[in-house]
C-alpha cells in the first residue's frame, strides 16, 4: 500500500480503495468491528500504518465514538461495520448524528452482489434501513463507482448541514480491482450544492433590526459549533459589540463562554429562569444555528409572543418549521456573523443604550431568583454539588465532557461552565442513553493528553458499558463519572409529575457494584458516598492514568429544576424553591391529570 497520492490514477482492489480514500480525506482514526462481509477491508487495514483502527465492543459504540471524535475535532468521524447485524447496530448512532448534525461516515460491508436479495447469511437491506437515518447513502454496485462514491460520501457528510452517510460495499466489490482516482481539489456535486453565502440585503436588515431593539436576545445553537471556531469567535465579538444577552441550546454550550458577562445560561425545558423569561419578553430574537426544538420552545402558541425573529441557518428546511420567523437568513453561521460584525463596525451601529440598560436591569431581577439553587446537604452528595465540584477541580485542565441522557445530563448542562466550543459532547436531538461512554472513548482517541469525562447516570451507562473494555484495550483513560441515584431519574421525575407518582419500572433493583465492574474490565473503580470525601476522590480519579468508573452516590430522590412543565410557556416555569411535593403533583392541570 505504499502509494503516493500525487499519482492521478492507479489500479487497486476495492478494499484498498477504501483505505486509500480514507487517507486522502485526512482520516487517521476509525472505529469499527470486523465481520465476514468486511474482511477484505480489514485485511487492507492490517497491511498499512497510516490509519489506526479502534476496535469497539458493539457497533453502536463505534458510531458514538466516531461522533465524539467528530464533535471534539470538527473532522468527520468514521465507522466501519460488517453487513446485517453490524449495520443494524449502527442505526442508533446514525440517527443520533442526523439529529445533532454530526459528520459521520459509516462504511458497511454487504453480502456479494450476486447474493443480494436471496436472504443470504448476515444480509440486511442496509441502504433501505438507513435511508431515513442518514443524510444520504449508497449501495456500491460496481468497482468503477467506488472511488467517486467514497469522495461524495465525505463531501455530503461534511458540507452544508453536516450529517451521517452510509457507503454499503458488497464483498465482491471489495475484492475486485479497478482504477482509483483521488478526490478533486474542490468537490463539485451535481445536485447537492448547499448555500453557504447569505444574501447581504438580509444581513443588513438583520443588523438594522438588532440595532432597533430595546429588549434583544441571542439564542445560539449547535450550528455555531458546527460552523467552526471562527463562528464562536465572531459570536463573542457580536455580543461584545452589542451587549446583547445571550442564551444557548444544549447543543450550543461553549460557543459563548459561561463566564462571559452576557451569558444567561441554557434555555428551554431545564434552562434558567432568566434565559426563558428573556426569551419570552424580548422584542428582537436573533437565533443563530438553532432549530426551535420542542424542548426549547415549550408551548408554541405562547413562545416569545412579542418578538421579531431573525433565524440564521444553513438548512432551508429549518426555517419556519415550527416557529414563524420574520427574517430568515440561509447561510453558514461564520459567514453570516462575519458580515454582521463587519457591517456593524463599518456603519458604526449603536444599540439603544438606555433601553438596553433597562433590559439588563430586568434580567438581573430574574437572575436574582437564583433558579438553580438547591438545598446543600452535609450527609448526602447532592448531584448538583457533584457537578460543581467536578467543574471546579477540572476547569483549569484541558477537559472534555460527554454525557448520557437524563437528569445528570441536564445538571451537567446547568452546572458545568463551558468556556470553549467542541468541549461538550451530548446526545441532544435523539436523546440516546448510552451515548456518553463510547463518545468519551472517541474524544480521548482524538485528544490523548486531555482529561475526558463522561458525566453519566447509573441507568444510561449500563447501555454501552462494554466499551470500557475498548478504552482499556486502547489505553484511553476516560473517566466515567456516574451520578448514581439508583433510578432512571428523569423517567421517575416525569412519573412523579405526570403519572401520579406511580414509579413504573424506573428503579434499577439489581445495580452492579461499579467499583468491582471497573476492576473486572481492567480499569479503576472509585466510590464517593459523602460530600466530605468528594474532592479527594475526584482528585484521585484525575490522577489515575487508566479508565475509571467513579461511582458517585448522590441523593436518590433529587429532581431536576427549574423546569417548564408540559403544556406551559416560558414564563410559567417551575422553580426549585416552589417545587414542593404538592406543586409537583399539581404542575399539570386538573383535566390533564384526569387523563393520567
Amino acid at each position, binding site marked *: 500500500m505504499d502509494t503516493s497520492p500525487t499519482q492521478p490514477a492507479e489500479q487497486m482492489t476495492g478494499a484498498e480503495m477504501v483505505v486509500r480514500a480514507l487517507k486522502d480525506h485526512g482520516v487517521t482514526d476509525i472505529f469499527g468491528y470486523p465481520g465476514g462481509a468486511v474482511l477484505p477491508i480489514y485485511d487492507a487495514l492490517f497491511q498499512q500504518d497510516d490509519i489506526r483502527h479502534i476496535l469497539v465492543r458493539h457497533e453502536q459504540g463505534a458510531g458514538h465514538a466516531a461522533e465524539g471524535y467528530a464533535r471534539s475535532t470538527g473532522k468527520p468521524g468514521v465507522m466501519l461495520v460488517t453487513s446485517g447485524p453490524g449495520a443494524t447496530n449502527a442505526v442508533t448512532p446514525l440517527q443520533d448524528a442526523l439529529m445533532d448534525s454530526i459528520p459521520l461516515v459509516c462504511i458497511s460491508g454487504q453480502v456479494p452482489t450476486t447474493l443480494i436479495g436471496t436472504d443470504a447469511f448476515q444480509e440486511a437491506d442496509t*441502504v*433501505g434501513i438507513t*435511508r*431515513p437515518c442518514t*443524510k*444520504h*447513502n449508497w*449501495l456500491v*454496485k460496481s468497482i468503477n463507482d467506488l472511488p467517486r462514491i467514497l469522495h461524495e460520501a465525505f463531501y*455530503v457528510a461534511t458540507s452544508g448541514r453536516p450529517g451521517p452517510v452510509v457507503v454499503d460495499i458488497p464483498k465482491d466489490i471489495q475484492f475486485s480491482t479497478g482504477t482509483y482516482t483521488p478526490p478533486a481539489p474542490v468537490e463539485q*456535486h*451535481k*445536485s*447537492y450544492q448547499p448555500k453557504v453565502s447569505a444574501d447581504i440585503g438580509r444581513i443588513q436588515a438583520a443588523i438594522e433590526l438588532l440595532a432597533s431593539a430595546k429588549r434583544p436576545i441571542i439564542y445560539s445553537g449547535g450550528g455555531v459549533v458546527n460552523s467552526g471556531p471562527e463562528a464562536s469567535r465572531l459570536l463573542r465579538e457580536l455580543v461584545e459589540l452589542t451587549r446583547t444577552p445571550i442564551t444557548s441550546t444544549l447543543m450550543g454550550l461553549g460557543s459563548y463562554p459561561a463566564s462571559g458577562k452576557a451569558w444567561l445560561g441554557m434555555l428551554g425545558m431545564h434552562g434558567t429562569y432568566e434565559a426563558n423569561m428573556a426569551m419570552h419578553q424580548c422584542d428582537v430574537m436573533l437565533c443563530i444555528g438553532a432549530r426551535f426544538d*420542542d424542548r426549547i*420552545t*415549550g*408551548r*408554541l*402558541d*405562547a413562545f416569545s409572543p412579542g418578538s421579531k425573529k431573525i433565524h440564521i441557518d444553513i*438548512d*432551508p*428546511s429549518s*426555517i*419556519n*418549521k415550527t416557529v*414563524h420567523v420574520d427574517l430568515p437568513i440561509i447561510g453558514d453561521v461564520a459567514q453570516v456573523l462575519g458580515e454582521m460584525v463587519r457591517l456593524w463596525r463599518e456603519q458604526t451601529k449603536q444599540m439603544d443604550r438606555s433601553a438596553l440598560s433597562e433590559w439588563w436591569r430586568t434580567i438581573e431581577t430574574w437572575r436574582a431568583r437564583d433558579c438553580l439553587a438547591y438545598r446543600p446537604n452535609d450527609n448526602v452528595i447532592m448531584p448538583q454539588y457533584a457537578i460543581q465540584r467536578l467543574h471546579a477541580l477540572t476547569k483549569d485542565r484541558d477537559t472534555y465532557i460527554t454525557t448520557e441522557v437524563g437528569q445528570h445530563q441536564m445538571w451537567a448542562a446547568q452546572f458545568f461552565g463551558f468556556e470553549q466550543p467542541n468541549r461538550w459532547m451530548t446526545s441532544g436531538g435523539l436523546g440516546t442513553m448510552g451515548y456518553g461512554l463510547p463518545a468519551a472513548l472517541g474524544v480521548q482517541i482524538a485528544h490523548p493528553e486531555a482529561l475526558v469525562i463522561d458525566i453519566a447516570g447509573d441507568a444510561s451507562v449500563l447501555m454501552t458499558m462494554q466499551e470500557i473494555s475498548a478504552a482499556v484495550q486502547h489505553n484511553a483513560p476516560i473517566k466515567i463519572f456516574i451520578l448514581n441515584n439508583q433510578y432512571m431519574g428523569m423517567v421517575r421525575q*416525569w412519573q412523579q409529575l*405526570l*403519572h401520579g407518582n406511580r414509579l413504573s419500572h424506573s428503579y434499577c433493583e439489581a445495580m452492579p457494584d461499579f467499583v468491582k465492574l471497573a476492576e473486572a474490565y481492567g480499569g479503576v473503580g472509585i466510590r464517593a458516598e459523602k460530600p466530605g470525601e468528594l474532592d479527594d476522590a475526584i482528585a484521585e480519579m484525575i490522577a489515575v492514568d487508566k479508565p475509571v468508573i467513579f461511582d458517585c452516590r448522590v441523593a436518590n430522590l433529587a429532581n431536576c429544576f427549574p423546569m417548564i412543565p*408540559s*403544556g406551559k410557556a416560558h414564563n410559567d416555569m417551575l422553580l426549585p424553591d416552589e417545587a414542593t411535593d404538592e406543586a409537583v403533583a399539581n404542575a*399539570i*392541570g386538573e*383535566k*390533564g*391529570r384526569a*387523563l*393520567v
Partner: protein
Amino acid sequence: MNTALQPPASAYFITEEKEQNERRTLAVLVDNEPGVLARVIGLFSGRGYNIESLTVTETEHEKHLSRITVVTSGTPHVLEQIKSQLARIVPVHRVVDLTTAARERGHDGPIERELALIKVQGIGEQRLEALRLADAFKAEVIDANTEHFVFQITGRVSKVDQFIAIMAPLGLVELCRTGVAALTRGKEGM
C-alpha cells in the same frame, strides 16, 4: 398558529391543527439513481405528508434525469416544509411548485393531464351505452370483442374521475391510471 391542547399527561406539547389544507402539484427533478423514488416516498410517509398522485419516469436519458410529479395536500405551512425537505434530498436537483408558479403567471393552475385504461364488460344495450358514453368523452377503444371494451381516456383528473364513475354501473371490471403529468402554461420552462 396552532393552539395548545390541554396536556394529556405528555412529555410533548400537543397542538391542534387549525389551518385549512390546500392542494399543490410539485415537479421534482432528480438524478435517476437507485433508491431515489424510495427517498421521496419515504420522506412523505416518514414525516406524515399526503400523496394524492405520484408520477415518475426518466425524462432526460443522457443527463440521467427523472421527473417526479407529485400532487400533495397540506396546510400552507406544511407545504413549505414539504418543498424544503424535498430540496434537501441529495439527488434532488430542483423542486418547483407548479401550482404557485402558475398562479404567479395569472393562471388558475398548471396544465394537468392523466391517462386511464378502463376495462368494461357487457353485452347488448349496456355495451352500446358504454360505447356511446366513451365517444362523448372522446375515449378511444384500445381493445374489444363482443363482451368487453378497453377504453383509453386522457384529460383532467376530474374528467377521468367522471368517466370512471359513469362506467361503474355499465360493467367496469378493472382500471389503471397513470397519475398526473403537469406543466406550467406559457413559453418559459420550469
